[in-house]
């Protein structure tokens, strides 16, 4: 046994939990003191009242969380499309949002031209494959070995091209997603729980299930197959991947096609909840805070990040929104992401950035 006196005193603050605990205690103390000195009740309204509401009406809380969960799943799907391409080619694909719109528009457009619904899905997949091949040939291949920022800018080009192309083909008017024809359920299930009614849209349940299945399949594919391994290899080192005989061109087509499939599914699900229009592209930007939260290279990160943003957003809107006149849903996600950037820039699951000097 060593002499205890000779050991340095343990630094309590080095332990993250203790640190966090102290901060929480500090916040609570500040809140208590604040409540005394708070004649207008502002602090009460921010720090106490929302939680009171949550406890008093648990059914409303459950409803809010469920809605957050569903939009979270859809954010996660969009983010997944970004992560796939970023992992395999190091390109931040700004066009993922418009790919969602384009896939959904193609599907609906084909249906309106008289193609049966399921045939339209298959044809749309064909279109997404053609798009992947075209992007690889026309955009990526000539830009091999260029700095990432150039490829990033190129995806802006793809975005604007797809907007114009989509509008000229299908028109700019919002369209109705053919949810019924694709046998997606309609209506809602009302659960009588927690002293009230929680209403679950069937389409939301379907979206959650389909999204989970797809994520599981993708994860298995990445982890255990030759092509999955090749994708991860390309993500790590282009020249080493080339040297073992992996064709970058082939991999890029596969990745962009996979992102296209993800885009189509996202488009169907999102379109079924609202409608299919170019406004959807703005929603896709929500994937940015999701990615900042989850890390750009992590599939689980995209999922967890999506859920956090989705739920956080809905809770914030419902309980805190009225305090400042509502509408915070549109920016709260970015606000959360900003907090993460300050304290954990690599995201929850991203690879920690270690630079040797």
């Amino acid at each position, binding site marked *: 046994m060593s002499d205890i006196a000779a050991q340095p005193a343990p630094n309590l603050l080095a332990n993250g939990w203790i640190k966090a605990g102290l901060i929480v205690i500090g916040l609570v103390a500040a809140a208590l003191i604040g409540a005394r000195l708070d004649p207008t009740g502002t602090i009460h309204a921010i720090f106490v009242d929302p939680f009171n509401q949550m406890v008093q009406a648990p059914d409303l809380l459950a409803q809010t969380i469920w809605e957050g969960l569903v939009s979270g799943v859809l954010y996660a799907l969009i983010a997944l499309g970004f992560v796939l391409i970023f992992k395999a080619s190091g390109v931040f694909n700004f066009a993922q949002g418009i790919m969602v719109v384009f896939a959904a528009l193609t599907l609906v457009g084909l249906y309106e031209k008289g193609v049966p619904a399921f045939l339209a899905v298959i044809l749309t997949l064909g279109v997404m494959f053609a798009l992947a091949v075209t992007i690889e040939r026309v955009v990526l291949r000539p830009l091999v070995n260029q700095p990432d920022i150039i490829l990033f800018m190129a995806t802006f080009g793809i975005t604007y091209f797809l907007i114009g192309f989509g509008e000229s083909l299908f028109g700019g008017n919002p369209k109705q997603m053919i949810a019924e024809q694709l046998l997606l359920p309609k209506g809602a299930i009302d659960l009588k729980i927690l002293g009230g009614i929680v209403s679950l849209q069937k389409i939301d349940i379907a979206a959650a299930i389909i999204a989970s299945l797809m994520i599981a399949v993708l994860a298995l594919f990445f982890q*255990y197959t030759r092509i999955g391994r090749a994708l991860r290899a390309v993500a790590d080192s282009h*020249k080493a991947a*080339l040297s073992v*005989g992996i064709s970058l061109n082939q991999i890029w087509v596969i990745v962009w096609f996979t992102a296209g499939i993800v885009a189509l599914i996202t488009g169907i699900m999102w379109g079924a909840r609202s409608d299919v229009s170019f406004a959807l592209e703005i929603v896709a930007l929500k994937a940015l805070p999701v990615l900042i939260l989850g890390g750009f290279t992590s599939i689980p990160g995209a999922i967890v990040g999506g859920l956090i943003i989705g739920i956080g957003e809905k809770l914030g809107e419902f309980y805190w929104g009225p305090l400042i006149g509502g509408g915070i849903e549109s920016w709260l996600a970015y606000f959360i992401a900003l907090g993460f950037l300050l304290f954990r820039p690599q995201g929850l699951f991203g690879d920690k950035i270690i630079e040797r000097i």
Partner: protein
Amino acid sequence: MNAHSMAVAGTPVTHKGEVLLSVENVSLRFGGVKAITDVSFDIRKGEIRAIIGPNGAGKTSMLNCINGFYHPQEGRITYKGVRRAKVRPHQAAAAGIARTFQNVALFKGMSTLDNIMTGRTLKMRKGFFWQALRHGPAMSEEIEHRKVVEDIIDFLQIQHIRKLPVGKLPYGLQKRVELGRALAMEPELLLLDEPMAGMNLEEKEDMCRFILDVNNQFGTTIALIEHDMGVVMDLSDRVVVLEYGRKIADGTPAEVKADQRVIDAYLGVAH
């Protein structure tokens, strides 16, 4: 190792076999910079061929030309009797040319096992469909290749790091994993770019042994770039010497060592 070097010293010119790869009058420029100027040499089947020269002599550029990373502006590269115009790296790999890199290029996030498995990419030919399902033929294929990879892991004595992500391994072991990945391709021609750079003596000896074993046991033809003269003289059957992108000598280690131009290039010459 000693026995081998004596054998080499005992045979004045080792004609191990027919020419596997020949480089004829190759020139490579980057803009105005001449990396390689009019270099010709050949690599015979089954030999260990060293490419040496001072820094910036164009050694790595030469390897890059051979495996298709660079396309020389002039000259010809003939591999297995076929002249190759603008070969792409994955085509070179498919033709049986494997390589390692000067600054280890591994897939850092992946385990040793997975890294070496990527070397089997071209040997695995079951379709995308089965791959996606991860069933039927793709599954038995996976197992079959896994066996080959395990043999390579045994051969290189890296069983203890099979499941570790390679990014965290010490440099010497990373180089060994990289060799393993190249071996998994079952190459006919193995290009090693400074396989012993940054290693300590013990690691170098291990690596020398592996290179010789690969050459002897599998009959793999090896072209290597190395700075350690002792290693080069011990290992190689023939040596080609580059300086400022030009070939200044070509022959057995003994011949090259005695060549005045080589001595000048390495020791400097009074002007």
